[in-house]
Structures are given as C-alpha cells and as structure tokens.
C-alpha cells in the first residue's frame, strides 16, 4: 500500500472549476434531450419556449452567464480511495472554499442562509452539502450539483411497506409531479431513490440525477421501472411551461441500495429542465 498525497488546493480549484462549468454549460445529455423535444413538438408557444431554452444554453455558454439565476445550493458527492491523504487542509474545507471562489468569480447568486429561521445570508453560497464515501484505491472522484430550490421544494419522501410493488412506486412518482404541476419548470427529471434508511434514500435520489439521461439502469428490472415511471408521468400532459405538449418528464432515473426487512424507503428528488452537474477524477 502506497499513500497518494493530494493537496487540498487541487481539490479547491477542481471544485471551483466544476461549479462554474455546471452553472454555465448545460450538460450535453440534458441539452440533447431538450433538442429532441423541440424537434418532436408541434408549432406554437410550447415549441417557442423550448427554442428559448436552447438559445438560453447557447447564450449562457457564450457569455459565461448562469443558465438560471437560481444557481442553487451546491451538493457535492465525493468518492475517495483509502490510500489518499489530503495535505494542507481537509476535504470539507477545500470544498467550501472552492464553492465560495466559484460563486464569487462566476458572479453567481449567493442563495444560502445560515439559519433557516433567522435567514441571514452567508454571503458565500456555502456551506455546500458534502457526501463522502471512502472506497479502496487511490482515486478521488468529485461530482458537484448546484440545485435550485424551485424543484427541490417539490421533492418528496415516503416510507413504503416492504411488500409495496412497482405500482405504488410509480403512483408516488405521478403524485409528486402532479403536485408540482407547472410550478417547478417542466420538463422535469425524476431522481428516484429506493432502499437504505430515510436519509440515505433521499441522498440517493439526488445522486441518481448525476446519471446521463440517455443511460438506463444496468439492472433490467429497474430499467423497466424507469420506463414505466416516465410513461405514466407523461400521461399528466403538463408540458413545458404547463402548456401541454409532448413531454412532462425527460427521464426517470432509479437507484437502489440495501434496506431493512421491515421497510422500503422511497424518495423522489425532482429536477427542473436545467439539471446541472459536473464531475472530475483527480
């Protein structure tokens, strides 16, 4: 076993670059999904709105403007190999410094308050929410997801019975989108977590949103479930700006994890069409 040293400064700078990228360059798979919708949509206001979203992505990239003014609260998923030793700081500090630097340099909105009741702005868009998993090896993998709260506010959890089947799972997804209606900027992406404990499940639902939209689950029973959820939710016919039309949901992404014999925790983390994330391996 050999220790691999990584400077905290490298982590900070990587986080900074990823946050700026995520906020200004729309993920290629998301942009492609919107372009596909645009091609399929019949002429009218809904098609014009989809056209505006495609223009928005172009303008954001060209002018280094935020894709959406809600540059969100940042969630960071880190997987670090046990052979890695961080020098000159700790991971969490490095992450927060990187986020603060990105939001200053990128002129992004400072949307984080220190106390949920007192509501004083932290002025730095930190703290970020940091999830760290330690595995074997010597790699450090980072994914950042700045997520706005329009969609976050419509996300939901439920503790299903262990005997619950896919019908209940699909139903909860449909209900979640029905409650959101046109309010959280459809077309949506659904991140679905199944299993774990209450908090693990919720974080898994958000992590699910990292997967490219054109990649189905590698597990056949989940790929089928993703398809069923997408079909059923699209029957709501909410559409872009709630104007009806070809699509309410761009994709449903399901991730699972081991859980207790007495339960089936479920979480739906709803994303708007401006699904933003960026990742790197150090």
């Amino acid at each position, binding site marked *: 076993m050999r220790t691999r040293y990584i400077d905290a400064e490298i982590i900070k700078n990587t986080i900074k670059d990823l946050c700026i990228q995520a906020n200004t360059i729309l993920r290629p798979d998301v942009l492609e999904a919107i372009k596909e919708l645009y091609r399929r949509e019949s002429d009218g*206001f809904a098609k014009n709105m989809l056209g505006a979203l495609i223009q928005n992505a172009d303008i954001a990239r060209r002018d280094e403007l935020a894709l*959406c*003014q809600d540059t969100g609260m940042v969630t960071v998923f880190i997987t670090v190999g046990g052979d890695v030793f961080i020098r000159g700081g700790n991971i969490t500090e490095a992450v927060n410094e990187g986020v603060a630097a990105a939001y200053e340099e990128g002129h992004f909105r400072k949307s984080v308050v220190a106390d949920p009741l007192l509501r004083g702005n932290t002025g730095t868009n930190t703290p970020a929410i940091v999830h760290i998993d330690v595995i074997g090896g010597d790699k450090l993998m980072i994914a950042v997801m700045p997520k706005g709260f329009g969609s976050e506010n419509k996300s939901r959890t439920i503790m299903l019975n262990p005997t619950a089947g896919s019908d209940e799972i699909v139903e909860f997804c449909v209900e979640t989108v029905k409650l959101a209606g046109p309010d959280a900027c459809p077309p949506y992406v659904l991140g679905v977590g199944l299993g774990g404990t209450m908090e693990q499940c919720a974080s898994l639902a958000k992590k699910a949103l990292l997967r490219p939209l054109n990649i189905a689950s590698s597990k056949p029973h989940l790929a089928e479930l993703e398809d069923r959820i997408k079909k059923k939710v699209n029957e709501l016919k909410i559409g872009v700006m709630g104007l009806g039309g070809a699509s309410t949901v761009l994709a449903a992404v399901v991730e699972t994890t081991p859980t207790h014999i007495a339960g089936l925790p479920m979480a739906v983390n709803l994303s708007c069409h401006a699904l933003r994330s960026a990742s790197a391996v150090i």
Partner: protein
Amino acid sequence: MKKINTPLMENVIADLKAGDEVLLSGVIFTARDQAHLKLCELIGQNEDLPVNIAGQVIYYCGPTPSADRVIGSCGPTTSSRMDPFTPPLLKKGVKGMIGKGRRSSGARDAIVREKAIYFAAPAGAGAYLNGKVTSCEVVAFPDLGPEAMHKLTVKDFPLIVVIDAFGNDIYARFN
C-alpha cells in the same frame, strides 16, 4: 404578438386574455419572498413604502449579479410563494405581476377584484432574458442582497398571460 408598455393602463389590461403572448417594455420592479414580507409589514403598519408601487409591475426575481453587464441571469421564481402577500399589494395599486407557475384562488380573486394581471416569463431561461434588460438599479432593501427590490428597464420582455383581469387562468386544468 402584442407589444405593451408600462405603466399598464386599465384598458390595456382589460384587452388582454389568458393565453395571450406579449412583449413588455418599460419599468418593472423585482421583489420576492423577503421584500414581500417587508412591504406587507409596512402596509400593515400604515407606513410609507420605499418604492411607490401604485400602477407598477412586480417581477418575482432574484437575479445573479454581474461585473460588466447591467444584470446577470434574471429569470422568474415560483409565484405561489408570494400568494399570501398579493392581495394587500394589489390593493395598494400593483397592476401586474410576472413570475412562473400557478397562483392560489386568493391571489386570483384579488387579481379580478383589483383588475390586475399575472404573466409568466420563460421559466429557467435567465441567460436568455438577460438580453431583454437594459438597466438595473437597487431601489429598496439593499441589505437583502439578491432579494432586494431592483428597478429594471426591459425591452420586448416575452410573457404569456396566465391570469387575466377576468379570472381566466391557463393553469385552471391543474386545480
């Protein structure tokens, strides 16, 4: 596509129907959660407001800042959070609101009662809308940072009428 200007005259408002697409030019004022809370507190205490909102259009928006442009990314935020504060603001003379998503029946009733109007701006297209803003200055509650009230001048700001002055609502099918 109708072109309309602020201040919105009552006859212009009366001519607009839910579902109409319009291009708005003129002055609008941003205000979201905390500014609405403060404005309604002042109204409740019979105090003067820092901005004369009578006849004006409120835009539910907390923009990103910018070093070299008048404003950064500036799309709408979810309107329903401002529903509880809407009746007193409309009573105080606000004539138009721009945001995204549904309104409550209370907000809709106030719109009809006060002959106001509610528009949606393209949602999640803050960089695209940046190009429609020609000036921006903070005019109230600067301590609120992005939640401060900004006076914006806009040119051909694309909107759709969601709720007209007669209570027609393009999102009625979701209720």
